[in-house]
């Protein structure tokens, strides 16, 4: 998830995770500790989502892609691929309003899945993609 918003350290960490996971198919302890250090408790929650294969990379014939993350309550959250946004309450409260977090667990899970190649893949029509992007899709799309 290329983004100028994510500070350099976090960006570098995700790059290291991608490289390490390609080589060993697992994450070494030092990277897990770094993840926890940079993202706080959000890191463990995001890793849970990764373990549960909760992240789906949705694409359409136009080539547009978006991440959909199934939250713990079964709610589906749409996260964009080129900048950080999530409709979850934590993002609006901790990231937008209080500015105390870099991102929420859903965005981090999407970043991790992209780095480790662990996201599910799904194809939808261009019209369905439009509704997903606009936040007006039914959850069963």
């Amino acid at each position, binding site marked *: 998830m290329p983004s*100028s918003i994510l500070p350099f350290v976090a960006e570098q960490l995700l790059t290291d995770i991608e490289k390490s996971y390609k080589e060993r198919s697992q994450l070494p302890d030092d990277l897990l500790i770094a993840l926890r250090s940079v993202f706080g408790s959000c890191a463990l929650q995001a890793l849970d989502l990764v373990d549960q294969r909760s992240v789906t990379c949705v694409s359409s*014939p*136009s080539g547009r892609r978006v991440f959909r993350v199934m939250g713990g309550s079964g709610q589906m959250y749409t996260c964009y691929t080129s900048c950080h946004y999530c409709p979850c309450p934590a*993002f609006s409260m901790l990231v937008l*309003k209080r500015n105390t977090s870099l991102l929420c667990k859903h965005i981090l899970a999407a970043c991790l899945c992209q780095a480790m190649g662990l996201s599910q893949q799904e194809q939808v029509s261009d019209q369905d*993609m*439009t509704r997903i992007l606009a936040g007006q899709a039914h959850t069963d799309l």
Partner: protein
Amino acid sequence: MADILDAVFRRHGHPTSASSEDKSVLSHSTTECDGSSVVVIGKRGVCSALLFLTAVTAASELGHKVIFYTHTVIQKFPVPVQESMTSLKPDSLKKIKFVYPRSLEELLLDVASLHELGSSAAAAPSLVLVDGLDSYLHGMDGVGRAGAGGPQREEMSATAHLAALLIDTSSFLTRISEKTGDSRCIVKGPAVQCRIIVSYHSDWEAVTTDPKLSVLDRYFPTRCTLVQELRSMAARDESQHEWQVYLSGAGVSGGTANGQQWHLGVRANGAMEFSRTSKSKEPGDSDQQREGV
């Protein structure tokens, strides 16, 4: 984006302040700005006029295909633009598509559907303008958008959603143009980059307290602030106003501390004239300007 504004300012520069080199800047913009997206903040009338002038200039002289979203149906040229329009090509309006979403939901759907044009680079816009984000965000039906929370949090989430969708769409359309080798735009730089310019109508007092503006700053690296001069505000003739134009943020070379400052004069005949002043402080630092953004 700020490179386009920079080009517009130079194109419509005051005759005595704009050199011939500045006048020909449009074919090789010597911009000092490299922002990928801009939010223009100021009073409704001057903001709308600036965006309209930008749309026409970008379409007629920079070769951009433009989409212009606005809540208010445009039935005639804005007064401050009419004189400036005389030197521009009327056919350029054909390259501008005006869209009038009535609600935030309609605007989100319209912007989200732009990827459906992506398979044909010729049909996809290279400049997306949204005039009056505030009119969509203030009137939003935010119930349930951010879960159980205050209306302020819901508005901030809605603001982030719209801004992020615009940026993500811009990124997608840029990728498509790069793949297809689209080279319609004349302006220097990443010639195929799809740009976003939005305006947010606000009074000066609200600029520092409106939480939605801090959200917009997360997504739009360049801020263009229009501050009306005090002596201009005292004038009875509303058609002759003077403004200070501040370009600031990461999208402007020199960073936020040393942005660019322009002067904008709206003349009696409706002409908008820009002249470069100097490196600026942030608006509000000056005793000469205040009020009436």
